[in-house]
């Protein structure tokens, strides 16, 4: 059950999307988000959709993986759609009982849901195609100027990469504890919500205890391997911007300014 979690997962590959510098991808996602939130009409949404599909095609991530990632957020997407559908004033399209659907509402619901779906797809593509190590080192490099004003950039990125490293380990452990508790008659699946939440307690307590033990052992192991903070550290894999990165940047900016221009001139 827990193995199905695809959030934050990385699928190794050797496509153009995988080879891009992590900094390019991070900035690219930022550009993508800005463009997405500037989109106001059919053409701009069409462009965003086309860009997303193109990115998915380039990365060779299967549609199944993407839909699996969207699954946990289905409720939010549907809710947003419905709220926009029913609570927008405008030209009435259908009206029965207490429900009124307007033309503007329909359009807005469609835009909002596609905005959320595209946003999720775009950000998921980042984690799907970038290894956590590359991602954190990219982030560290991008935020490096902040360390001048005493922001612990290296420590933050190290913590992030440790957290990502331990997700599969902790998931495995949760599964193990769950099986052990089930073998002794624990019931995680039935009962009211409150009962089920209470049933999770004997799962969370051992998980917490063992996480602290792990953290302690990890700290000792890291120190034993000469870890002493970010100063004087080198990296085996140096980040390098190639022509492919500049191309991606160019296309990204064209997309963003295009979408903004479309919104500005109201085309």
């Amino acid at each position, binding site marked *: 059950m827990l193995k199905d979690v695809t959030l934050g997962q*990385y699928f*190794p590959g050797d496509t153009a999307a995988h080879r891009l510098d992590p900094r390019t991808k991070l900035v690219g996602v930022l550009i993508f988000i800005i463009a997405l939130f500037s989109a106001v009409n059919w053409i701009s949404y069409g462009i965003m959709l086309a860009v997303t599909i193109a990115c998915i095609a380039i990365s060779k991530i299967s549609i199944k993986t993407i839909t699996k990632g969207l699954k946990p957020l289905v409720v939010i997407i549907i809710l947003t759609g419905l709220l926009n559908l029913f609570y927008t004033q405008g030209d009435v399209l259908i009206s029965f009982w207490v429900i009124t659907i307007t033309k503007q509402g329909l359009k807005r619901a469609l835009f909002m849901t596609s905005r959320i779906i595209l946003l999720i797809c775009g950000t998921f593509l980042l984690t799907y195609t970038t*290894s*956590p*190590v590359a991602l954190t080192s990219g982030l560290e490099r991008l935020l490096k100027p902040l360390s001048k004003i005493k922001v612990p950039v290296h420590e933050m990125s190290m913590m992030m*990469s*440790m957290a*990502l*490293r331990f997700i*599969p*380990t902790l998931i*495995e452990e949760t599964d193990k504890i769950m099986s052990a508790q089930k073998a002794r008659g624990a019931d995680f699946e039935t009962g009211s919500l409150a009962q089920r939440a209470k049933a999770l307690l004997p799962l969370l307590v051992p998980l917490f205890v063992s996480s602290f033990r*792990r953290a302690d*052992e*990890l700290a*000792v*192991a*890291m*120190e*034993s*391997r*000469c*870890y*002493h903070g970010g100063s*004087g*550290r*080198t*990296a*085996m*894999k*140096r980040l390098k911007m190639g022509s492919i990165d500049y191309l991606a940047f160019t296309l990204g900016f064209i997309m963003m300014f295009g979408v903004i221009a479309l919104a500005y001139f109201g085309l």
Partner: protein
Amino acid sequence: MDKIIKIENLHFTYPGDEIPTLCGIDLEIERGSFVAVLGHNGSGKSTLAKLLNAILLPSDGKVTVSGIDTADKERTLELRRTVGLVFQNPDNQIVANLVEDDVAFAPENLGVEPEEIRRRVDDALKTVGMYEYRMHAPHLLSGGQKQRVAIAGILAMQPDCIVLDEPTAMLDPIGRREVVSTVSRLCREKGITVLLITHHMSECVDADRLIVLSEGKVVADGVPSDVFADADLLWSEGLSVPATTKLLYELNKSGINVPLTAIKTDDCATAVVNALNLVK
């Protein structure tokens, strides 16, 4: 011969504890030797490991490794590069999501040049036989493979000495064999001093020297065959002996004269055959 580790009158008490964990240990370990340290739970063997690379500092006494006093705070980094520690749980010492990135962790910390790191990582992974797995995620490997990756991570620092704190405790027999044979090869071929802390008797048989710890003291120290020959002592310390020793011991007790020192399987077989021939 050159002594790589010198421990003089070492005492250690954990803060807040009444009873000392280690009380008065004197040891000298020769460079390039393969030493096994045996002891039951709570005998202080893990504490000893952590004292060797300044994770813990002695309450009293002195620990020197390659001429570096562990209490010398200025040289801690140099010390930790010299003495690599491998721990029991492989999951809790792997820091990266990719095997080769994990092996690169220590040299990255030491500020080694990227090209040199690449070379060291490849070398270390080839040495432990995990080169084909360099692009794998560590959590998908078997226990023995993870532990070999951990050893590679230490090798990338190019240490003079590797201390392994019960590296096989969480492994199945196959993983155990992988790890022990890797470690003994490192010692024989690369001349790295190995200190293997364990409670599996069978892993001690190949060592040059066996040290038995109990209640924070050294109770036996010598060539494994001699130490195991004193089976009564080991039993009284709550430890077992290898199956070969047990067989020889029982044979002796029932009046068949066999040397207790024949602890390697082949030697033991020969000894038993000889004894049987005599009986005939």
